[in-house]
């Protein structure tokens, strides 16, 4: 299915009528839609879902899921009471050479308290060469059934997925996968065909009975033979069913064994746990180092004796002491005590008795003389403040500052190391949480239980199959004998010719039934082979780390393996996204292939053409190396691609996508700017080429909020 044009009228955030058209030519098949978060990207995908499956598929929150909840709030608010209001989605698409246009609408009446429940309606607008020729209402659900056949519900999320395909139903496990694959392989159709053939065979058998009624003996033989062959057919059908069940069981067992193997192989998990433990020790060591370095800082501060603060005292103190030195007061050769002792004596030191002159002379000494103690103290200070002193404040301050700088650097280094170690612990924690080995014991126990259960069921089914095959051998022998006996008792003449003809028809019908049973089995095998070829072709050339995609032969689940073929359990968002895109794209191609094969067998399954993809935010959590790879895949790996891009993703991948884009649309949000939380108008700026587009505009009231579609390039 290739999308041509979508028109939205008053649908969800889209006010009024707005259209987007999508190119699909070989070299022009990429459409980009730019929009910030919460401005309408997802509403576009919901519009498609609404068209295909109606309001019930939308999980509407408003007023217990009323259809009228899809009607744009601004339009509803503006409608006069009593007026009818309609919202619709109209989609034009191609299947092969045919073009179709469908419209699904909801019409509701505006009451005093808002819209009533509303009625939903689906119509097909039959297209002629130039215009719509007829409008068909979906009176008996035919149109709905047609749409669901063309776009099965189970496949919608795969083709129009919302950013996290690996979380979707496609890859969620064997059961979910099996349902989707049943859709892909059309198992139900094969069963219908086998049943129809069974009925045809019964008709032929009844005819044979009628013809054979002329000969009682022959009729008896034929009746017994038919009963026997019916038993044989039933047994073979049962074996066919069992074979399929056995395949499923084997697949389940293989998946569980693989899971157990992965759980058992804890090398990576153990390495992470050990790494975390090492990091914790490192954190502890660094914390101790920081504490110790802080202690050293204290020791340096204490040992400094305040020297860095005393530097300006050095010069004045030196000056005073030098002056004392100059006046022969320091060192104190004649101390204060000595002079006082001289003055107490009758005679001077020279032996003459003191007279007024000598006393006056000694008393003048007393005024300047220092005590012995003070002299020592002054001398100590002088030594400290003298130039070149190793124990003075200058040298001490310099040393202190060197020590402080070095210690502070050490603390900063430790803190930086500590921060990076803590961040690393967080990262390792996250990887441990994401590891398949988290809660390992419980998982191993549960997987072991499931594996044991699966093995028991498998062995039992294998036993049943063996018994049935034995029974088939016996019945086949009996049937061969009965066929010979019937041949002998067969009437001659015209009746014989009729009998031969009917018997040949019965035989051919039986062969065809067997063929269908065999084909269903071989279909799985072929499906796997083709899926592997396609996924490899789509994934491998784009994987920048030389990993490869492998599709499991039993479960059909895709996985990433390294160059040695070992499964990669810890893969980034980019690889997963790329694998998902490749897988979904491969399944789409396979679906088309299966449809064509079945059409060749005259089994008509509805139309399946090349598929368009709408991808919402494919670059979320993507490694930069993979941005280019995914962009390359998107723009070259599918027939039609519509990419919805948020601002951050556009900044990241726009340069790779823009050259490939045939059309660029943008969704501009009209809102009351005060309602934007933590966002600024510039956050809505998208740069396309050399031009900046601001995808936000102001309205006066929050009730007037809506989204407008702009064509940018």
């Amino acid at each position, binding site marked *: 299915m290739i999308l041509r044009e979508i028109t939205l009228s008053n649908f969800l955030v889209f006010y009024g009528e707005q259209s987007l058209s999508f190119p699909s030519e070989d070299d022009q098949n990429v459409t980009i839609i730019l929009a910030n978060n919460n401005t309408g990207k997802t509403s576009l995908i919901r519009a498609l879902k609404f068209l295909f499956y109606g309001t019930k598929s939308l999980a509407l929150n408003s007023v217990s899921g009323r259809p009228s909840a899809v009607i744009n709030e601004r339009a509803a608010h503006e409608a006069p009471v009593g007026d009818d209001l309609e919202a619709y989605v109209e989609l034009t698409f191609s299947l092969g050479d045919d073009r179709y246009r469908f419209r699904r609408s909801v019409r509701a009446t505006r009451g005093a308290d808002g819209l009533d429940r509303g009625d939903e309606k689906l119509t097909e607008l039959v297209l002629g060469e130039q215009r719509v020729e007829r409008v068909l209402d979906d009176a008996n659900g035919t149109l709905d059934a047609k749409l669901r056949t063309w776009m099965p519900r189970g496949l919608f999320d795969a083709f129009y997925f919302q950013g996290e395909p690996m979380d979707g139903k496609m890859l969620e496990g064997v059961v979910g996968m099996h349902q989707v694959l049943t859709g892909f392989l059309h198992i139900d159709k094969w069963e219908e065909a086998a049943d129809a053939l069974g009925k045809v065979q019964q008709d032929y058998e009844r005819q044979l009975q009628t013809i054979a009624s002329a000969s009682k003996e022959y009729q008896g033989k034929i009746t017994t033979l038919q009963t026997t062959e019916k038993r044989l057919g039933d047994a073979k059908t049962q074996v066919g069913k069992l074979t399929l069940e056995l395949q499923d069981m084997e697949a389940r067992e293989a998946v569980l064994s693989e899971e157990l193997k992965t759980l058992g192989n804890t090398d990576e998990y153990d390495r992470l746990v050990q790494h975390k433990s090492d990091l914790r020790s490192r954190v502890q060591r660094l914390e101790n180092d920081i504490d110790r370095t802080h202690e050293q800082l204290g020791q340096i501060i204490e040992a400094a*004796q305040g020297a860095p603060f005393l530097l*300006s005292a050095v010069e004045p103190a030196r000056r005073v002491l030098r002056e004392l030195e100059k006046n022969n007061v320091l060192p104190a050769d004649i101390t204060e005590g000595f002079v006082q002792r001289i003055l107490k004596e009758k005679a001077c030191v020279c032996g003459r008795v003191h007279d007024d002159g000598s006393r006056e002379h000694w008393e003048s000494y007393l005024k300047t003389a220092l*005590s012995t103690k003070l002299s020592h103290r002054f001398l100590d200070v002088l030594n400290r403040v003298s130039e070149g002193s190793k124990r003075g404040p200058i040298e001490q301050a310099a040393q202190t500052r060197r020590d402080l700088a070095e*210690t502070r650097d050490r603390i900063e280094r430790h803190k930086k190391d500590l921060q990076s170690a803590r961040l690393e612990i967080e990262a390792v924690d996250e990887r441990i949480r994401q590891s398949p080995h988290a809660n390992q014991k419980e998982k191993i126990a549960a997987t072991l239980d499931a594996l044991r259960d699966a093995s028991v069921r498998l062995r039992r089914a294998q036993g049943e199959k063996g018994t049935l095959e034995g029974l088939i051998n016996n019945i086949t022998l009996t049937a061969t004998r009965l066929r010979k006996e019937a041949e002998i008792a067969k009437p001659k003449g015209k009746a014989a010719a009729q009998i031969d003809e009917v018997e040949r028809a019965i035989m051919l019908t039986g062969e065809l039934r067997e063929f269908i049973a065999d084909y269903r089995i071989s279909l799985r095998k072929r499906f796997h082979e083709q899926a592997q070829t396609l996924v490899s072709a789509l994934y491998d050339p784009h994987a920048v780390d030389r990993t490869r995609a492998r599709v499991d032969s039993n479960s059909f689940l895709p996985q990433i393996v390294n160059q040695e073929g070992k499964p990669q359990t810890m893969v980034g968002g980019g690889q997963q996204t790329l694998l998902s895109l490749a897988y979904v794209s491969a399944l789409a191609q396979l679906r088309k292939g299966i449809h064509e094969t079945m059409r060749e067998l005259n089994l008509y399954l509805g139309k399946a053409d090349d598929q368009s993809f709408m991808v919402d935010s494919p670059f979320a959590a993507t490694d930069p190396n993979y941005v280019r790879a995914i962009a390359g895949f998107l723009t070259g790996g599918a027939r039609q691609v519509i990419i919805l891009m948020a601002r951050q993703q556009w900044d990241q991948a726009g340069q790779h996508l823009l050259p490939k884009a045939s059309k660029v649309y943008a969704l501009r949000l009209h809102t009351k700017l005060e309602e934007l939380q933590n966002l600024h108008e510039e956050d809505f700026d998208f740069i396309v080429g050399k031009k900046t587009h601001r995808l936000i505009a102001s309205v006066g009231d929050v009730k007037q909020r809506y989204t407008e579609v702009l064509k940018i390039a």
Partner: protein
Amino acid sequence: MPAIRFPSSALPLLALCKGHGENYIFRTYADFINLMVAYGFHLHDKQGQKIPNKPTFVDSPNPINLEVFENRGLYSLFIMLALAYDDSRQVAEDEEQLTSLIERYAYLGARHLSDSTQGKTDEEIRIFLCTIMSGTDDSIKI
């Protein structure tokens, strides 16, 4: 011998002394007071802050005898400050005047440090001291 009384402005900083906090810096009150004195001198001399005329003191911790400072090699620093105070030997050779000057410097230094480190953790006080000690005189070549 006279003693240096413990300034009341230093009480919020007692955790820096052994016996009052787990992460102490100073093993004796004398070492702590010495730093307050030096810082007070710096604030007065380099930043022009006024030395308080009537500082207040607490009874506990007890006054610290000048001998204790002398034994720890800190007394000569006091002499140096006294000599620098008025460019003369006058205050330095009078123990009462010297004690009074040292007490006033200690009060000023402690008050400023208490105010600046209010609400800070032990680690932050260490870093603060480290910062002010590293940046006191850029003319010193390290």
